């Protein structure tokens, strides 16, 4: 039997180059490749002109795309080059490993992901280029992190089988097995009879080693396939497989022993298909066990194979990336970097500059020694944005199948006509439907459009407008890159979007989306990014803006049965940070900036209430929503406010005393910091008047300001000594959204009344628009009641006060004020 063995390293460009050369010499009639035997039919498709690597062979049990396993192929993968060679030279190609239906004992699909698997396989591959080509989808996308992140660098307790190349490298006196293998095979321009040497070395290494049962089964299968090929083929046979297996395949084992080993293996059918893949998912940081450290570097090695200017090309790419980001990189520095790299290689005793040397040299010569700069380009450089393509029509996309199953489970049919759908999240079916629609929305498939959340308080209802468009299927095929099932793909896609988001509030919204779509992966990423971004934002106003959306997500999360505790803590932390910076944020603002700050202050205040689980219960809010319920309810809440505010009896006594009493009174940390900040803002003469007024409003609404104190406060700020412009804005800040309070609180009303009355004519006219704004919230009934309060109803008590004012001024004011208050316009 004329069988030739080619021990390769998965995704090794050097192996690929040597392999192609060797195949050209051998001209085999049959090429056998390590891969699932039942998918051999798909091999010729790799040579299709429409097939652009990276692509992956996906195999999954029919109806369970989430349990897919993948065999990725990049341009520089020896397996891909072998299949390509076979197709171009009219040789037959076959996969010879166990059929895809047979799963390793520790892999039952994503339902029971074994946390060790990724780590173990990753470590193996990272060190030595050995192990399985296959990956499990359940091992997570680029963001998975956690237990599946391979322990790349630790070489401490590796057994021989885990890391054969590492052992060889150590024997050759190299610390870093990766670079040893690179020098010997991947980057060696003249490798010589390297395949024979590697086989021999592996045989030596495997002498006396126990082979794991699973590996033994795989090798038995491959031996049988090779024997079968020997019977079929008329010419030489090439076997392309991971280096570690070669001695096992060459071992003489009787056919009956192999048959016995393979007895009882599952023989179910699986669905197999090609799917577009990305370089990012070839990297082992993506959780792919057989991944490589830097796919971008491997691709570069493959494309510049045999060229003498390989390192120049690489350094030029680095320079390009830096220049794209606006850094100055001179050609002279590139020359220096290359010289430094070769002198480093000489110092380290390597035949030519490798990845490490080029990186160190680039950092020293091009980046001014800053590792940070390197980190800004490393993703693009090492992972690369490349995404593969598969020939049109060839893909039975698993993602589509998964979506169809989810549609059946949710009993929602894709229909091209618009239709409305109301979803109740408290029921299982409702949740399932909402989940499906949200997840598709995350992937950019707007099947359902959320028309309303069913009112501001109804977190249990969603109203959707459904409309399925045919192009959604195309989008689904494209999104397979992110995962073969809906939850995985949506999670990875959302995580990617989060990474690209700049603004804090946008990110908060995406986190909300992750909760709505119940995507744990997006949720975890979002939380981490949000935490980082919030910590590095020093603009209190921006921070405040993120509090309310987060608080809503927390509440939403409760409806979704998501553990929202981490998010709640984060929202509170953001609020604390914002509170600490509030003093500076409120100074030196122009009118529009102050308006914006006030808007955010109020939303953050509402957010805090949501966080504490108490429904919004400020006196003015009540008055606004239930004006008809009127005085009774209001009195209740005000007397509560009074009781709470007892601790701070003397607002005007100055900030020092207040802080002391507050730190005793506040059981809740976040709230106490928040209230302290508001109080400081209120007492800050340099703060924008609008913001100070708003702080007073929030304190009053939170029951932290006793009615008497509030009156004293208003009197002080609206007293004749205060500049009119300042006073007017303070009043606007205090009463905007709370003007109804003036109807019920006689003392407050009097204070405002007095101020308006003593305004000079010009001042009054100047500030008229502002006064209008304050009272614009009141509806007709309320305006009427306010006027009643000022004139008629309370006339007996209040009229003397009115009369006591200078008659001339009063008439003048009345003439202007009356139409205004009655809503007839002021012109």
């Amino acid at each position, binding site marked *: 039997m004329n069988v030739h063995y080619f021990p390769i390293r998965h995704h090794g460009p050097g192996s690929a180059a040597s392999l192609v050369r060797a195949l050209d010499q051998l001209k085999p009639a049959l090429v056998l490749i390590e891969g699932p035997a039942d998918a051999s039919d798909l091999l010729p498709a790799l040579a299709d002109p429409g097939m652009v690597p990276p692509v992956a062979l996906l195999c999954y049990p029919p109806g369970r795309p989430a349990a897919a396993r993948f065999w990725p192929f990049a341009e520089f993968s020896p397996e891909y080059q072998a299949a390509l060679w076979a197709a171009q030279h009219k040789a037959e190609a076959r996969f010879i490993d166990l059929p895809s239906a047979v799963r390793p004992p520790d892999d039952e699909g994503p339902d029971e992901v074994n946390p060790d698997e990724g780590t173990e396989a990753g470590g193996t591959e990272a060190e030595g280029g050995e192990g399985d080509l296959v990956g499990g989808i359940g091992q997570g996308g680029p963001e998975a992190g956690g237990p599946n992140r391979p322990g790349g660098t630790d070489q401490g307790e590796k057994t021989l089988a885990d890391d054969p190349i590492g052992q060889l490298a150590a024997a050759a006196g190299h610390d870093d097995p990766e670079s040893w293998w690179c020098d010997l095979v991947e980057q060696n321009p003249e490798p010589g009879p390297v395949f024979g040497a590697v086989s021999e070395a592996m045989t030596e290494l495997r002498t006396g080693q126990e082979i794991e049962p699973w590996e033994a089964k795989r090798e038995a299968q491959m031996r049988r396939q090779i024997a079968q090929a020997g019977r079929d083929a008329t010419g030489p046979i090439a076997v392309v497989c991971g280096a570690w297996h070669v001695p096992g395949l060459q071992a003489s084992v009787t056919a009956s022993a192999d048959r016995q080993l393979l007895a009882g293996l599952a023989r179910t059918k699986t669905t197999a298909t090609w799917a577009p893949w990305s370089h990012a998912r070839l990297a082992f940081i993506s959780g792919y066990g057989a991944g490589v450290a830097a796919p971008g570097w491997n691709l570069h090695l493959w494309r510049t194979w045999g060229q003498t200017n390989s390192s120049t090309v690489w350094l030029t790419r680095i320079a390009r990336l830096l220049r794209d980001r606006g850094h100055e990189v001179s050609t002279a520095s590139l020359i220096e970097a290359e010289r*430094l790299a070769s002198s480093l290689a000489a*110092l*380290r005793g390597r035949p030519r500059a490798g990845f490490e040397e080029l990186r160190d040299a680039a950092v020293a*010569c091009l980046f001014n*020694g800053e590792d940070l700069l390197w980190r800004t380009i490393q993703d693009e450089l090492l992972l690369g944005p490349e995404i593969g393509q598969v020939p049109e029509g060839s893909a039975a996309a698993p993602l589509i199948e998964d979506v169809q199953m989810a549609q059946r489970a949710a009993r929602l049919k894709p229909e091209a006509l618009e239709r409305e759908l109301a979803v109740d999240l408290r029921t299982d079916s409702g949740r399932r439907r909402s989940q499906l629609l949200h997840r598709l929305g995350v992937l950019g498939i707007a099947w359902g459009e959320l028309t309303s959340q069913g009112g501001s308080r109804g977190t249990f209802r969603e109203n959707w407008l459904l409309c399925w468009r045919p192009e959604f299927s195309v989008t689904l095929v494209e999104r397979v890159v992110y995962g073969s099932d809906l939850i995985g793909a949506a999670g990875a896609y959302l995580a990617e979007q989060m990474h690209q988001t700049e603004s804090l509030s946008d990110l908060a919204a995406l986190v909300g989306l992750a909760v709505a779509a119940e995507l744990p992966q997006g949720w975890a990423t979002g939380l981490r990014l949000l935490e*980082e971004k919030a*910590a590095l934002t020093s603009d209190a106003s921006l921070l405040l803006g993120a509090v309310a959306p987060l608080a809503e997500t927390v509440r939403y999360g409760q409806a979704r049965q998501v553990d929202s505790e981490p998010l709640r803590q984060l929202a509170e932390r953001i609020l604390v940070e914002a509170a600490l910076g509030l003093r500076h944020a409120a100074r030196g603002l122009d009118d529009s900036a102050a308006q914006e700050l006030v808007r955010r202050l109020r939303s953050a205040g509402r957010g805090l209430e949501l966080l504490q689980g108490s429904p919004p219960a400020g006196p003015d809010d009540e008055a606004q929503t239930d004006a008809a319920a009127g005085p009774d309810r209001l009195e209740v809440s005000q007397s509560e406010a009074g009781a709470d505010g007892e601790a701070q009896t003397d607002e005007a006594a100055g900030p020092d005393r207040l802080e002391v009493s507050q730190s005793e009174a506040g059981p809740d940390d976040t709230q106490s910091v928040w209230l302290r900040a508001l109080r400081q803002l209120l007492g800050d003469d340099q703060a924008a008047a609008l913001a100070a007024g708003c702080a007073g409003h929030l304190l009053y609404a939170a029951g932290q300001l006793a009615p008497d104190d509030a009156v004293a406060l208003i009197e002080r700020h609206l007293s004749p000594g205060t500049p009119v412009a300042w006073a007017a804005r303070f009043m606007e800040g205090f009463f905007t959204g709370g003007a109804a309070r003036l109807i019920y609180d006689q003392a407050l009303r009097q204070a405002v009344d007095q101020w308006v009355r003593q305004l000079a004519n010009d001042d009054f006219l100047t500030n008229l628009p502002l006064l209008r704004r304050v009272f614009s919230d009141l509806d007709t009934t309320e305006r009427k009641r306010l006027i009643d309060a000022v004139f008629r109803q309370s006339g007996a008590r209040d009229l003397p006060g009115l009369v006591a004012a200078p008659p001339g001024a009063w008439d003048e004011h009345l003439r202007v004020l009356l139409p205004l208050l009655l809503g007839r316009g002021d012109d």
Partner: protein
Amino acid sequence: MTDVIRQTAEQAYAAELEALQAGDTGARPAGWRLTPKAVVTYLLGGKASDGTVISPKYTGSRRLVETAVATLATDRALLLMGVPGTAKSWVSEHLAAAISGDSTLLIQCTAGTDETQIRYGWNYAQLLAHGPSEAALVETPLMRAMRRGALCRMEEFSRLGSDVQDTLITVLSEKIMPIPELSTALAAVRGFNVIATANNRDKGVNELSSALKRRFNVVVLPLPGSMEEEVSIVARRVNEMAAGLDLPLPRSVEDQIRAVLTVFRELRSGSTEDGKVTLKAPSSTLSTAEAIGTVIGGLSQATWFAGGRLGADELAASMVGAIVKDPVQDKLVLEEYLETVLKKRRHSAAYYAALSDAL
């Protein structure tokens, strides 16, 4: 010899250098006393071929030292950057000692250093008596290094005025020093090179011009990586300094060092030690050297005013001084750190209270 306060590196480690040189037969760049590999061994420690133990001079990353040595082996100049306390000068001294056998060709750069201290000066008595001549020339360490083919060290390079810095451009790119007064130029002998050191987070220094920057390869020396490493460095320095200042060391000093360093390291790195919380970093450098200064300050306070008891109260004032350099931004950063991190740690209650007070 024992009378000198401090021996140079080549004197103090003469035995190691000799042992390395004896067994070092490989090819070496012109003018070098050791091969680049042996230089790396000398800095990072190991064994000479005759079995002599070489003590490690630098405990940081091998990669960085290799890059530094490889840079000097090309004809590019080396710029070592780092915050105070990252052993820049120490590394530069030992590199010069190992490569040229002479670490004394040193120019200490200050804002007052002018061109004549970099290039050459004149002996005015000679100049007036006999006119311009070689004899009237006063050589600088840089010129001597060029003549001998040795390494010249320039400390705190970025403190030099920009115009003075730029005098180096000709020397670094053409390897000559023109002396127009004598219509001649001094050509550097092979083996000549420059090692400059600079603080990369110092304020009020002169950025290198991009023309000059291109002539340097930059190696940034990082702060100590692990907490333990940094604690041991600070503890050792505090011990030495306390002995010199006659300050008695209380037992708890190591715990306090740990507490101070935790705060410094977390603020400096912008995240808590467990990596869970991201923080804003203050504008201050919070280097190891500053941590040493802070502890010594606290120690002095404890000795003279607190009956020898060293705790959060004694350290807080100097800590705030070290952290808050910008009265608005840094204060906010520290407040935020206190409220969001320290307050939640039960064992840090004393520091939370003391630092809040001191703010």
